[in-house]
């Protein structure tokens, strides 16, 4: 819930920021900027992110970001995203064993699995390597909070019995269901491609969510598109 509020707040801030950015950006279209090695790298930018996230399974990734280029070498950014499934192998194997157990106890084919969509909101820095031309490699570090939602699915003879598990003597704990919000740290690298007011970001990130027992390490491959104000 906390992460949702954070993201909602981020969206609100983003929406509020857009008119101001538009007001300040408008004159920029009519004035001539001073000469610079990479004038397109500075200023505020707002964008969206899409891609893939992978832990044990590969899933989609969708998010947004706000960035501010302090100079042509450092950007500050805030990002929020949804990752489709960050379930770890250990958790998947553990819950699968309950499917086996139910099969033996109920005498019917049973399965147990889960998905773990996650929301991540954080901030960080991009350290760019200024280069001539449109391509600018960078290294990114950051941190934030991730909310992981565990969504188990139990079936017996093909019927979803997840919400009636107590009938079958199963008590779900927070190891297989519920939401957990934990700190997360992120590191990665990528390439910024500037094209006037649009900025394209192709990057890889490794986000380590500090879940109890075993860290959840999410590999993200993402593409971002931002509008520079």
């Amino acid at each position, binding site marked *: 819930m906390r*992460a*949702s509020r954070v*993201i*909602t707040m981020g*969206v609100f801030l*983003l*929406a509020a920021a*857009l*008119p101001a950015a*538009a007001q300040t*950006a*408008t004159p920029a279209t009519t004035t001539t900027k001073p000469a610079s090695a990479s004038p397109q790298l500075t200023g505020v930018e*707002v*964008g*969206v992110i899409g891609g893939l996230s992978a832990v044990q399974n590969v899933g989609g990734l*969708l*998010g*947004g970001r706000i960035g501010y280029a302090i100079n042509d070498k450092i950007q500050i950014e805030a990002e*929020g*995203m*949804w990752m489709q499934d960050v379930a770890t192998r250990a958790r998947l194997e*553990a*819950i699968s*064993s*309950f499917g086996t*157990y139910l099969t033996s*106890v109920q005498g019917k084919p049973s399965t147990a699995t889960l998905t773990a*969509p*996650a*929301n991540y909101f954080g901030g960080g820095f991009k350290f760019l390597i200024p280069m001539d031309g449109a391509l600018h490699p960078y290294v990114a570090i950051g941190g934030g909070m991730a*909310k*992981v*939602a*565990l*969504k*188990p699915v139990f079936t017996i003879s093909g019927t979803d019995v*997840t*919400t009636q598990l*107590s009938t*079958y*003597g*199963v*008590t*779900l*704990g*927070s*190891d*297989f*269901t*519920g*939401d957990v919000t934990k700190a997360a740290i992120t590191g990665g690298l990528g390439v910024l491609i500037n094209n006037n007011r649009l900025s394209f970001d192709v990057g890889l990130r490794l986000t380590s969510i500090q879940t109890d027992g075993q860290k959840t390490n999410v590999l993200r491959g993402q593409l971002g598109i931002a*509008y520079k104000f």
Partner: protein
Amino acid sequence: MHTMSMRFRLLSAVALVTTVAACANSPVSPTGAVTLTTASLTSPANGSSIANLSQPVTLTVTNGKVASSDAVTYTFEVATDTGFATKVVSQDVAQGAGTTSLKLGTLPAGTTYYWRTKTTAGGSSSPYSSSLAFSIGTAIVVQAPAPVSPLTGATGLSQRPTFTVTNAVRTGPVTSVSYRFDVSTSSTFATVTASATVAEGTTRTSWTPTSDLAGGTTYFWRAQAIDAGSGITSSFSTAQSATTLVVIDLSRVNYQRFVNIKDWPITDTIRAVSQDGSPFANPEGTMCIDHTKRGIWPTSPFFGDPDVPVESNQWYFAFINGTWYGGSGENMRPNQICKQGQMSENIGPDGTWGGPMDTWRPRPGELVGYMMTTPARFWPSMKTVDERSDMVIQPWVDTRPTSSAIKK
């Protein structure tokens, strides 16, 4: 216009992200930290009937599944009602290997119980399992049988007396009751002389030893009832003590200089022995042994004198220093049963027994054996048919005043 369009697209994208992010919520709330299952109740099976004697009952469950390495405990509950309002047991047991068991204490008999369990680990608890029922059978109580005979103080028992008890009072599902009889020379029954288990009689149960007990011995005896079905035994009856008749083993008697008559057939029965070793008796030292062959047995002449026919001999048996000695006493004329002059002080010396009986002086109350035989002297011409009577053993009588009592 371009700016407005771009801003609208961005807002739309952010709204989409927000919507998607909101989906990252779990539909099921956790109960505790660990996912686990209820254990499976294994035994006793539902509806089991357990004999009261088979207690204690052990409850066993197949372990539930727990998704953690936390310590697992199982809470066992036993109640007398299906709602578990009246619990008689509620106990946590650490998980065993594969199965987990709880040995109950002794539960009241004749009751149906319900039991269930739940799993606890890592702060999570499963719901209680469905309950199973088992019942404890009615208690079997078998009281000690009551001795009937012989009771304490009884004497003159045969060497194979019959011991009798009143059947034991019992409650519960008794199947087949038998009785164990013990006979011992010790009041503590440290050593059992004879013992046997016999089937129950209609209202009383009796047992007769199949081998002789020692004669003249005080025995203690007791009995207990045994229910074969349950194996329950009663306590022992109150021990009784009774004394067997003194008997004389003729094969072990020292006959001194007289004939060994142990193999002579018993054709005669002693009716009564009446004697008095007192010199003041009338007649003095009277010795009468009435028997059924008086006047019947053939006679022989006394040392060849046909005018003195001899029909029988009186026999006396004395217990001297742990051995029975015997010898022929007075010669008896046809149909004669009494002699005189058999005073305590001279029955021994006058007998010329040729052994320890030569100095024998029976004391009042001393057990003496009596028998009648056809003439039993080592004088061939005096013998007739070689027959004898049974043996009677009774205390020596001497009615003289105490001040003149016989001194050994």
